């Protein structure tokens, strides 16, 4: 039997005076190896993880493109194969306005985004001129998802190949750090496809869902492109309800709508209801109240809402429903859908607490209104 009681560690590791030259070599060789080739070894190990993620991104990109092409082919009997045109749309790139002089950049960004949206809408419509606005908005969203996944794949692959080509380990480090967040976004986008194809409400639609129900049985008027409002009364106050036009897959043009409405009416408060990204550790589908314009996106709509509110000295209150990025763009979860009644009663609470009878309040449901009519 092996006797483990008389083990001499000094001898084993060569600590003693009578050091074994072979053992010393075993110690020194790896040190030399790691000093000179450490970064390269680390590069190879990290590369394998990144390569796996890039493989997944490539899969998501191909899958989203296939889903989009099949959706167009199956729903609209087109004479010509739309594949080439769809591929061309996916390759469109965007150049944001120069921001060396930030003065007046918001109208420029707005113009750029709207031109891009209008162009895409017109060209998708040209595929099948009889297409309904609902189906058109679905295709536009699917196109947006597929092109975002394509862009993510291209950028990550470019950074990875550049680092590999130059054996540049520091270049791969930021990529390794950012990749889990990027993969989370990519998975969320890929998982959102079935909901948008089926016209189901997404987590981001909680604001429009709350306001949409309040707008039922009222007369709806257009306040800006793909954005509607209606008037109703609550507890002696006049409520103006505003949301993107459902059930289209759109966020509307709330900035323009608020600008138009505030120039025509006098408001004493603005209440915005939106989905907000939850922090790690926070529970999903929890409601919170706050101040300021609760609206995401690039910032253009928020800028115009804040500008209009500031010019007329109107306080902005907001109610948010916390959720993850995946929940926000995917099919609405039961927990989020269950908050709708609670959020609605909180809207009424905010109105009662902060306004008086005879005053006017603008209530805005912010978010993608896919599958949420009014």
């Amino acid at each position, binding site marked *: 039997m092996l006797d483990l009681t008389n083990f001499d560690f000094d001898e084993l590791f060569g600590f003693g005076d009578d050091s074994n030259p072979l053992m010393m070599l075993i110690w020194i060789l790896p040190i030399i190896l790691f000093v000179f080739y450490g970064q390269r070894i680390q590069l190879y190990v990290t590369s394998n993880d990144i390569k796996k993620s890039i493989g997944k991104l490539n899969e998501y990109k191909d899958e989203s493109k296939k889903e989009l092409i099949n959706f167009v082919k199956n729903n609209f009997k087109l004479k010509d194969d739309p594949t080439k045109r769809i591929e061309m749309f996916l390759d469109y790139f965007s150049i944001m306005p120069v921001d060396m002089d930030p003065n007046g950049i918001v109208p420029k960004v707005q113009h750029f985004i709207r031109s891009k949206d209008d162009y895409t809408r017109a060209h998708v419509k040209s595929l099948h001129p009889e297409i309904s606005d609902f189906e058109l908005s679905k295709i536009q969203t699917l196109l947006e998802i597929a092109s975002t996944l394509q862009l993510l794949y291209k950028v990550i692959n470019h950074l990875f190949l550049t680092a590999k080509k130059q054996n540049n380990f520091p270049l791969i480090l930021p990529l390794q750090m950012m990749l889990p967040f990027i993969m989370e976004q990519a998975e969320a986008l890929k998982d959102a496809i079935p909901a948008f194809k089926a016209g189901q409400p997404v987590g981001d639609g909680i604001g429009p*869902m709350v306001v949409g129900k309040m707008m039922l049985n009222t007369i709806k008027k257009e306040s800006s492109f793909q954005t509607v409002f209606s008037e109703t009364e609550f507890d002696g106050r006049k409520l103006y309800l505003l949301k993107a036009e459902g059930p289209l897959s759109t966020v509307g043009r709330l900035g323009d709508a608020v600008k138009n409405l505030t120039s025509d009416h006098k408001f004493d408060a603005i209440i915005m209801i939106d989905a907000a990204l939850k922090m790690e550790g926070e529970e999903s589908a929890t409601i919170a109240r706050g101040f300021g314009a609760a609206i995401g996106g690039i910032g253009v709509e928020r800028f115009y809402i804040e500008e209009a509110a500031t010019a007329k000295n109107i306080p902005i209150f907001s109610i948010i429903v916390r959720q993850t990025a995946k929940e926000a763009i995917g099919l609405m979860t039961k927990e989020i859908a269950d908050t709708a009644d609670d959020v609605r009663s909180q809207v009424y609470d905010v109105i009662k607490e902060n306004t008086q009878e005879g005053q006017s309040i603008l209530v805005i449901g912010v978010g993608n209104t896919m599958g949420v009519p*009014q």
Partner: protein
Amino acid sequence: MIFDKKKITTAYTVEQCNSCRKEIKRKFKEGDCLFSETVKCPSCEGILSIEKIFGETIEQ
């Protein structure tokens, strides 16, 4: 990962009677749209309208 469980999300529609407030949960059907009226309530003379559409995820 090899130990990751496959997640399947199923869409459901919840209808509520405008009279007796009874709720009926069923699988989502194509054409279901929030707030739209669907059929007569099986327990009273009211009309069912779609109150919620959501997804539930199970791990397999």
